[in-house]
């Protein structure tokens, strides 16, 4: 049994974030940390340390799927790990993110605030109980949009956790795809020099200099 470290409990932060967001939509802004920290770590040479250690989402679905045995633990379909699907999903996710930013801009420019959280990019969930009068409408609009993205990813996480292996979301998580892409751009040549490329086999230590 490996000794637990402080970052093994970051699933609590993820759970707390969802609860806080449901309590007050403005807490959705905290989710920007889950977006920016992985990117900054990857950009500044930390690789996928966020996915590997600090991702509360991954830990949470790991606990639900493994400890609570909510997962079928079945191998996922092959397309899930293919580059076309992973980068296609990332592209789709980013388009939806920028559309959310555009609607935030519209509210900034004078359009009325839409007090709804969009789930799975289609279903608009009325969220009129939120108290957002203390902030600028555009600030609240971003919170509604962003919390919709976070809830959507949570729903997808849970579905794939139940259907396949617990952490199946990690295979096509847009943040994971993006950070791995950054690492490939930064270190692809180093890895090749190290003994292999991401295009070829990557399991032996014979040529990896270890």
């Amino acid at each position: 049994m490996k000794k637990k470290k402080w970052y093994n409990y970051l699933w609590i932060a993820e759970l707390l974030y969802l609860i806080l967001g449901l309590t007050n939509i403005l807490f959705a802004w905290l989710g920007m940390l889950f977006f920016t920290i992985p990117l900054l770590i990857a950009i500044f040479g930390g690789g996928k340390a966020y996915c590997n250690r600090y991702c509360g989402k991954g830990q949470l679905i790991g606990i639900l799927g493994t400890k609570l045995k909510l997962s079928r633990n079945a191998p996922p379909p092959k397309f899930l790990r293919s580059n076309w699907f992973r980068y296609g999903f990332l592209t789709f996710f980013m388009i939806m993110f920028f559309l959310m930013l555009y609607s935030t801009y519209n509210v900034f420019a004078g359009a009325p605030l839409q007090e709804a959280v969009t789930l799975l990019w289609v279903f608009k969930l009325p969220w009129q109980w939120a108290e957002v009068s203390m902030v600028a409408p555009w600030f609240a609009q971003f919170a509604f949009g962003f919390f919709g993205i976070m809830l959507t990813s949570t729903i997808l996480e849970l579905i794939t956790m139940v259907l396949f292996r617990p952490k199946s979301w990690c295979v096509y998580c847009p943040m994971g795809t993006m950070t791995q892409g950054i690492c490939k751009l930064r270190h692809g040549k180093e890895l090749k020099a190290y003994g292999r490329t991401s295009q070829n086999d990557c399991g032996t230590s014979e040529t990896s200099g270890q």
Partner: protein
Amino acid sequence: MNKSPNIAHIGSECVACGCCVLVCPKDAIHIAFGITAQVDEEKCVGCKKCSKECPADVITMMKRGMHSEKKEMV
């Protein structure tokens, strides 16, 4: 010490999520450059824990020493 006949082999579609690293009882796997998992042949005992955990299902067990030659699934 006798080495196990089989060791883990990481497929090319590894997403470097690190799930295998967490479950490996021998610390035989690490994530190289944030791009892919890599197995230390010397440490790997072929317990299959990583292949059962891998969410991308890209880890297979292979005969030791077969990596750079023709792949043989076991």
